[in-house]
């Protein structure tokens, strides 16, 4: 959501997304950087986003706006800050600034989380360091457009050029147990292409996908939504687990197959997701 559009800031929370990115960077022209910063600050203070995660994309720290973005926005405690063109040094610097602001404002230390926007070849190749440098990093967002530009290759709908990057991000994030969020699909009128692209990223292990337009949210959710059969199975797994608990069994089976921790975890995630998406009550 462009940070300089009051109407969009007001309605950002009700469009069905799990998280919203209030943008101070690319969507805001140079002449509106300061007014957008104030608007986003006021939106966070005054708009009820209920349980939607509020993420603010700041300007890079090597611009004249980045540090002031943090200084203003962190004081109203957004859930998360999205750091563009992320590398180890920048995340470290943001982390230190946040330590100071949190202390000054009486915000619980480490409360403000970070998502690293990996959109340079350097960031991609040093992704472990980027994640490990701060405990605040809860996710990586892959920025396909800037990355392919940095790589000097053409961005295509099929996305073969970011196949490696997607895999690399997924593996690093899974290793560090944080979210891997896929790059947006930029053709806002091609819902079929969006569904394909989302399904591909999901199959590689991405935990979510960013949308560049609210109209994309439903399609992304439908790709990531568990199927009816998956939900049924997950509910049965959890029922069986409850029953085993009551009977004091440590190990149990369902349909003749052993149910172990990964299966239970997956079932729990499936049911949670189905609840969020309103597929079960």
């Amino acid at each position, binding site marked *: 959501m462009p940070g300089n559009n009051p*109407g969009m800031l*007001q*309605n950002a929370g*009700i*469009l*069905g997304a799990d998280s919203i990115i209030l943008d101070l960077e690319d969507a805001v022209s140079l002449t509106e950087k300061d007014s957008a910063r104030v608007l986003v600050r006021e939106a966070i203070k005054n*708009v*009820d986003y209920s349980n939607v995660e509020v993420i603010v994309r700041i300007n890079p720290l090597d611009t004249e706006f980045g540090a002031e973005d943090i200084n203003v926005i962190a004081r109203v405690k957004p859930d998360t800050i999205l750091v563009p063109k992320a590398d180890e040094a920048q995340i470290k610097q943001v982390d230190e600034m946040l330590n100071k602001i949190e202390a000054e404002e009486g915000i619980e230390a480490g409360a403000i989380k970070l998502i690293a926007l990996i959109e340079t070849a350097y960031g991609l190749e040093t992704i472990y360091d980027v994640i490990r440098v701060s405990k605040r990093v809860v996710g990586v967002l892959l920025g396909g457009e800037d990355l392919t530009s940095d790589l000097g290759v053409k961005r295509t709908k099929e996305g073969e050029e970011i196949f490696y990057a997607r895999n690399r991000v997924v593996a690093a994030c899974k290793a560090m147990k944080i979210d891997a969020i896929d790059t947006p699909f930029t053709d806002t009128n091609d819902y079929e292409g969006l569904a394909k692209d989302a399904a591909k990223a999901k199959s590689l292990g991405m935990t979510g996908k960013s949308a560049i*337009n*609210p*109209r994309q949210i439903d399609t992304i959710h439908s790709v990531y939504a568990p199927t009816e059969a998956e939900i049924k199975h997950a509910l049965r797994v959890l029922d069986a687990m409850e029953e085993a608990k009551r009977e004091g069994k440590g190990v149990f089976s369902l349909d003749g197959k052993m149910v172990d921790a990964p299966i239970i975890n997956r079932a729990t995630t499936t049911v949670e997701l189905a609840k969020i998406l*309103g597929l079960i*009550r």
Partner: protein
Amino acid sequence: MKNILGRELPDYIEGYGKIEPFMGAFNNTGIKERKSVKVSSVTPGEEKVLASIEEALDKVQIKDGMTISFHHHLRNGDFVLNMVLEAIAKKGIKDITVAASSIFPVHGPMVEHMRNGVVTGVVANYMSGPVAEAISRGELKKPAIMQTHGGRPRAIESGDLHIDVAFVAAPTADTYGNINGVGGKSACGALGYAVSDAEFADKTVAITDNLVPYPACPIEISQIYVDYVVQVESIGDPKGIVSGTTKITKDPVGLKIAKMATEVIKASGLVKDGMSFQTGAGGTSLAVAAELKEVMKKEGVVGSFAAGGVTGYIVDMFEEGLFQNIFDVQCFDLQAVESYKKNLRHQPMSASMYGNPHNKGAVVNHLDIMILGATEIDTDFNVNVTTGSSGVIMGGSGGHSDTAAGAKLAIIVTNLMKARLPIIKDRVTTVTTPGESVDVIVTERGIAVNPRRTDLLEKLSNTNLPVMTIEELKNMAEKITGKPNTIHTSDDIVAVVEYRDGTVIDVVKKIK
């Protein structure tokens, strides 16, 4: 005195007459009479084609104090109303009442005629632009009368609104006065709003830019009602004839509202074979049609009819077999005109057949689902589509109160806030449609069901939809926008808002 909605009304208004207060949507029913019509018989050999509008004015013996009528099928592209008024003004005629089914920005030149006494009365179902603004400022001598699309033919047929001369803009007319809207460069399709005018006026003049040899088939308005035919160079601008709002909204908030409204429709149980549906041409309303289309396809439902002002989206649903018929009072775009021209099951309806509450049954009585908009809604579910937030007239019922009264499920779709203003208020500025006809309000942040509809409340409680009271919805908006100040108007009445049965539901006061 007060009407049943608690709106303060005088007993009598100068320039309007005695007030019959609104006492409920179906309070004024029963045996009604149609007025008799004077007909000047035409004998063999007589000609109807005249050389000019001026000659027509002489032939119909136009004089001070007359009421002349126009239809609005050419919408914001209409040239006819302005041409006729200019000719009347040139003749030095004064004190004319203009009964136009709707008035658009293109009719701005009428303001000057209001100022110099040529036009002293206006009767319309909808008005926007300079004329509406001038009326709001008190520049019309008599209070304007705001009717509904069904109320207008009721008034004409009963004699409440006597038309001396009807000027019918005719996309195609023949030399003997048969008219259709499907031929010619100004083709606008169905001519439903012109039918009662032609039938009940003392004199009817067709004004056309496509004069064809007799007969002009298919005939929509018959020669038996038409006295004279005048050919002019152009009756309208095709760009203005096609309505500007017939595109599905791209606004994500509008789309969300449409999705929620469709969930409400599904939960109501009305999506089944034989269903009927109408929606306006606003972006969000059309988005509901698009969503409903998918639901009907998925569930294999075939509806009986779609009605209304018809757009290409409705035509698509019809052509895909989702509806067996279309009832069309007016075509909103060229795709609708084309469909109307070629398909016999794309049926025209007069405004009387569409919504007149005092005939032997209007189409709205058969409507299942109606999607409507709103400028303001109050906690009694009364809806205003007549005046804007500043108190200026910027619309009118059109078919709003007719369809709301008839439909089994009347849904209002609206943003909870527009710009910085909350839509739900304690009391609307002007009541257009009474709350008793409104079943549910769908906004992006919540849904409010009229407490009268306990059945619907129960059905919606079994869904995940955010159902709340209208007060909760109002508070939610006010938390964001604050409470707007009340608009202060003067005591002068500039317009009388008639309900479809002719009783007075509200008045519009002059803005300060």
